[in-house]
């Protein structure tokens, strides 16, 4: 409450006659900023065009259509599906105990590693046949989600629960500590270099085309996993008793406790759900690019956290929306500006979000961001 008052005072003092403009910038500025990149490249492709190859005599051929931007968007959305699943874990945990769970990205890495070990143990290859693959991967998914969920609960019990009354920065440091521990586990487990894994879904196979935009198997996997998982989570949070307990605890832990909710178990349950989604994301990530790395969780964690903040932290739909947006931004940068700038551009967007609309795209005013 105090934060809102201060922020308003500051804003009013600074605003003066420009208040109207500022309000418009506050509500539309972010959307304009987010649309800037795709719109610019759409117009660029239509007017300037892009080089689509060479004629027999060596002259470049220029096309003026939306195919390339469509390819970027499709790839971006399916990348974003992975960030969205990780972002949900951040948003759930932040929503309930206001902690940036820095170890979450590394739980995601553990998901990739566990998944890959399980399907190697099961002996799955592309030759197994579709039915065997689907059964095997489902089993892998269930076991991995259980493992990463339990890992996240374990981290919560060891590193965060004893620190509920401590200064707010203390759990942040233990989160970072656990992140290092998990990275070291990953380093010992799979070595320091990216590891190729068995390409079980034939990820580069074009399943069908939509007006020139190829839809690969990997896109279908990513989006096809995101939708049922998010629907299931949404059902759990909004339609079941433990889900109601989670929402109550997020709103007011003390009142929830007085109403007979076991706050500790509810927090653990939240970590369980977040860890399970991170495990699923880990499996999708490993299958998607057919490789994995002990350090992949670091960047994934930062992107996913950006996504969660962009959407509105504490809000599941916001996390999904933010994840998809980050995926598209990432893909546009990778393809148009060069991979080395992607991280900087995503963080510039994060700062724009924070300046123009700290509550996020779907958010109401919160305690922290006025």
């Amino acid at each position, binding site marked *: 409450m*105090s*934060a809102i*008052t*201060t*922020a308003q*005072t*500051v804003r009013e003092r600074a605003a003066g006659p420009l208040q109207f403009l500022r309000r418009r910038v506050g509500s539309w500025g972010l959307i304009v900023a987010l649309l800037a990149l795709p719109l610019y490249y759409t117009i660029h492709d239509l007017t300037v065009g892009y080089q689509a190859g060479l004629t027999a005599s060596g002259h470049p051929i220029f096309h003026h259509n939306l195919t390339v931007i469509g390819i970027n968007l499709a790839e971006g959305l399916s990348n974003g599906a992975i960030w969205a699943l990780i972002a949900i874990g951040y948003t759930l945990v*932040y929503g309930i105990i*206001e902690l*940036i769970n820095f170890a979450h990205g590394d739980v995601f890495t553990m998901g990739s590693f566990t998944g890959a070990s399980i399907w190697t143990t099961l002996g799955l290859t592309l030759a197994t046949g579709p039915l065997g693959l689907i059964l095997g991967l489902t089993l892998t998914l269930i076991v991995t989600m259980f493992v990463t969920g339990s890992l996240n609960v374990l981290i919560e019990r060891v*590193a965060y*629960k*004893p*620190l*509920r*009354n*401590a*200064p707010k*920065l*203390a*759990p*942040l*440091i*233990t989160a*970072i*500590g*656990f*992140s*290092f*521990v998990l*990275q*070291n*586990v990953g380093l*010992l487990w799979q070595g320091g270099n990216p590891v190729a894994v068995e390409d079980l879904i034939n990820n580069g196979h074009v399943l069908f085309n939509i007006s020139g935009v190829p839809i690969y198997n990997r896109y279908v996997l990513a989006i096809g996993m995101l939708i049922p998982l998010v629907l299931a989570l949404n059902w759990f949070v909004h339609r079941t008793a433990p889900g109601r307990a989670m929402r109550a605890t997020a709103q007011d*832990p*003390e009142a929830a*406790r007085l109403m007979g*909710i*076991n*706050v*500790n178990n509810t927090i653990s349950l939240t970590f369980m759900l977040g860890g399970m989604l991170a495990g699923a994301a880990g499996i999708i990530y490993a299958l998607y690019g057919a490789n994995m790395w002990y350090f992949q969780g*670091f960047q994934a964690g*930062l992107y996913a*956290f*950006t996504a969660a*903040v962009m959407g509105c932290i504490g809000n599941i739909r916001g996390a999904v929306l933010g994840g998809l947006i980050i995926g598209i931004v990432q893909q546009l940068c990778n393809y148009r500006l060069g991979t*080395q*700038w992607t*991280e*900087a551009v995503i*963080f*510039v967007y*994060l*700062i724009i979000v*924070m*300046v123009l609309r*700290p509550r996020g795209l779907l958010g109401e005013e919160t305690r*922290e*961001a*006025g």
Partner: protein
Amino acid sequence: MSELQAQLHEWLDALQRRVPAAPAWLGGRWNRPGIPLLLGILIVFPLLFSGTSGFLQATIYALGYVVMALGLNIVIGFAGLLDLGYVAFYALGAYAVGWFGSGFISGAHINVLAGPNPAFGIHLNFILLLVCATIVTSIAGMIIGLPTLRLRGDYIAIVTLAFGEIIGTMVINGSNISLFGQPLTAGNLGISSIDPPWFPGTGDFGLLNLRPWYWLILAIAVVCVFVAYRLRDSRLGRAWIALREDEVAAVSMGIPLVKTKLMAYAIGAAFGGMSGVFLASFDQTVNASQFEFSFSIFIVSMVVLGGIGSIPGSILGALAISYINFYLIPDVLNTIPHAIGLNFDLTDLSIGIYGFLLVIVMVLRPQGLWPEQRRKRELAGEVAPELTELAEPSAGGVTAG
């Protein structure tokens, strides 16, 4: 576990009682001769080791990080603004050396009191470099601070983290950005041939004798400790603490919010820049891959481990973490597995051990090794023990449930 915890608390409290408070002109009581004695010991300390000793080298790094931790403690501890992008100031300080204290900008021919150096490039004296870095990083600190003025808590952490990462990406890609035909940075190749510090009468500092480096960073660190103490007790320092404790109350008492917060960012950044200048000179290279997010975390963990807001805590935290990283794990503990017949290097486990230590120490002593007196009173003294739960219902409730 709790016995160990009680024992640890007892030791640390005893240690705190034994070390005298700072003298009056440092803002404390001047009742024991501890400070000059400690300074004397610190000055003769390197004479006990050989000029190339690994321990001395670790100590030099540790003192460099003490300066950084003191600076970050101003931002996080005094003003309560969680800054996760502190690496940006390390980078800017180091690049101040890269640009103005090496042959990197080869088109220029400037030498200001920097001793015998090649004719090309810009060479400024070490003191001038410190001044440059202080100015550059203070301005950068204020720029980074601006978008966070409306925000609180973890949101500040995210914005500063983003700035740190943006600067990190910029310096890595800087070799592709040219201004007037001069690349901005040397990227991952690194700018080498950094000038060693040179003062009239001392000659160049070499790596065969580390003692002058030690005395130099000791001098910088002592000045920084002094500045930190005086700032804490100044009008500005009290304004920071007031803002940290209750922003609304502080603003309504007439504390200028924008100016006070920006000053915290600027001064904290300046400390980081100064340390960056020294560390870059000591490393003799400015390599873009040094400026990663993990470095910010490294410094934050020093401040939090020592005790947020506490100056001796930050010093202790910085020394502890740097010795663990640069001496204990690589030099001392590394031989243990071989000694007990296991065939692996402990360095493979160093990040894991480091992470594990962070978790253990924070769980056992969440207020930090040497907590600030004010926070200690807040946590324990003000309210009678049986009333604590009533006074802090939200805090007491969650664990009880």
